[in-house]
């Protein structure tokens, strides 16, 4: 088995009186896709927000590449190799597509404030390098021809891929994708499907929240099922698919059929 890059253990958090998560955990391995599924309100996105440092958990531990990062702020986590996308788009709408991805190169840009102010060679080099990297990533997600369009003018499916390109620009070791295929048509979904497989093949640990069961069953190595803030089941897609509790709580008859066909 490959190396564990990200592990969350016994994560719990409450908002007011509500326990949003209780004793949840997972282990994401290099080069593998781990899917987190569960009905709406199960706490999937909250788990992402804790792991990526946006929320502070009441209990539990997050370990990234062997380092305890439970209290680390998001930008530190990014520097340690964690990157993510958002369920509700968090695109930089005032920028062009290319600039969005260039912003993702922030941690790789070796240019000081003084160099930027005076437009010294270091700043110009950083701009060029980021632009090149961004163009390559845009090509990879199929947005090369839209590079210089304002992000706000791109269709929804394109923005989903733009966020993935921006997240990849940080050169992450762990990538969290929050419903990357939500609202996409079947063609776009297939494209994202291939993209995720290609990313994992590079040795990146991918953690995926997704409602499209066909996609989940097809590309993930492990599946974690949450229900009402608790861990309902975990295992291979086949194990989860046949778990009666999961079928009862989440998949339902229709979903089970869909998953079996996949």
């Amino acid at each position, binding site marked *: 088995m490959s190396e564990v890059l990200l592990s969350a253990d016994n994560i719990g958090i409450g908002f007011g009186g509500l326990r949003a998560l209780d004793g949840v955990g997972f282990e994401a391995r290099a080069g593998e896709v781990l899917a987190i599924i569960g009905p709406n309100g199960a706490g999937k996105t909250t788990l992402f927000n804790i792991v990526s440092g946006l929320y502070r958990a009441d209990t539990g531990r997050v370990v990234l590449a062997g380092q305890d990062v439970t209290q680390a702020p998001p930008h530190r986590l990014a520097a340690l190799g964690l990157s993510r996308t958002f369920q509700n788009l*968090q695109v930089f709408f005032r920028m062009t597509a290319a600039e969005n991805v260039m912003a993702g190169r922030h941690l790789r840009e070796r240019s000081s404030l003084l160099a930027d102010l005076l437009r010294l060679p270091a700043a110009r080099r950083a701009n060029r390098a980021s632009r090149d990297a961004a163009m390559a990533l845009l090509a990879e997600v199929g947005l090369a021809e839209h590079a210089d369009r304002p992000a706000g003018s791109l269709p929804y499916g394109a923005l989903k891929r733009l966020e993935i390109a921006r997240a990849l620009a940080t050169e992450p070791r762990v990538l969290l994708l929050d419903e990357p295929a939500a609202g996409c048509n079947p063609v776009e979904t297939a494209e994202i499907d291939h993209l995720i497989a290609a990313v994992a093949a590079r040795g990146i640990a991918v953690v995926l929240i997704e409602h499209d069961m066909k996609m989940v069953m097809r590309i993930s190595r492990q599946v974690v099922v949450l229900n009402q803030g608790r861990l309902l089941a975990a295992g291979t897609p086949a194990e989860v698919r046949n778990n009666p509790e999961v079928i009862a709580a989440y998949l339902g008859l229709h979903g089970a059929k869909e998953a079996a066909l996949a």
Partner: protein
Amino acid sequence: MPELLQFLVSGLTIGAVYALVALGFTLIHNASDVVNFAQGEFVMLGGMVTVFATAAGIPLPLAALLAIAVAVLVGLALHRLAIEPARGASAVTLIIITIGASIFLRGVAQIVFDKRFHQLPGFSGNDPIMVLGAAILPQSFWVLGGALIVFCGLFLFLERTLMGKAVLATAANRLAARLVGVDTSFVLALSFGLSAAIGALAGILITPITLTSFDVGTLLALKGFAAAMLGGMGSPLGAVVGGLVLGLLEALGAGYVSSAYKDAVAFLVILAVLFSMPQGLFGHRSVERV
């Protein structure tokens, strides 16, 4: 002891005015998310219109009513002509619109009235009443009493009347309120009118003590805003408590520290509160949804 009592009374008096201004802020903010920097101009209008109306021979009670009516009209016009057309604009844009309105109203007041300071006679004379060795102006009781009536009236209105409940519903969730049939646009206009009336009343009550002129609004608006923040933006009770606390701190600061830095005391407190508990005394902690 008499000294302390003196400071406490003057602190509460001016604090009651801050509380009224803060209440006006809160009403409008709850209905629309707009922070109305022109709130202080309602106070100015209240004082100035009353001064000029009484000077023209109109009896004080009528002059006061006239002043409130003028302020309400201005408040409604502000909503209809400046806020309504800019719906959906960013917070900064709306702040600047109301600052523009404030400068405009001040400019107009300077033309219509004049640039001098004016005073009203105390409603019950100007002879101080001695209480435990402290000299208290009878007007202080007018201010405190007036403020108390406004607080109670507003509370009854919000909690006991259907229209008040519509205001509260709009504050809690505008979309949901609209879905259950609340005319949110009317609620917004109502909030502007109501907070203009409250502001004008504050101006009428305080003018015998502090004087008024065309430009008193700015600092009052800032302190009222500060009081609203101290109490936690959005909570009417917080606005009242915030205003009184601010007034007391200011009076004590002026009495025991330095009267030159009276205004500084208020802002230092605000900064301290914002840094240590950004949600204010009565506000709610919010979790940013992602």
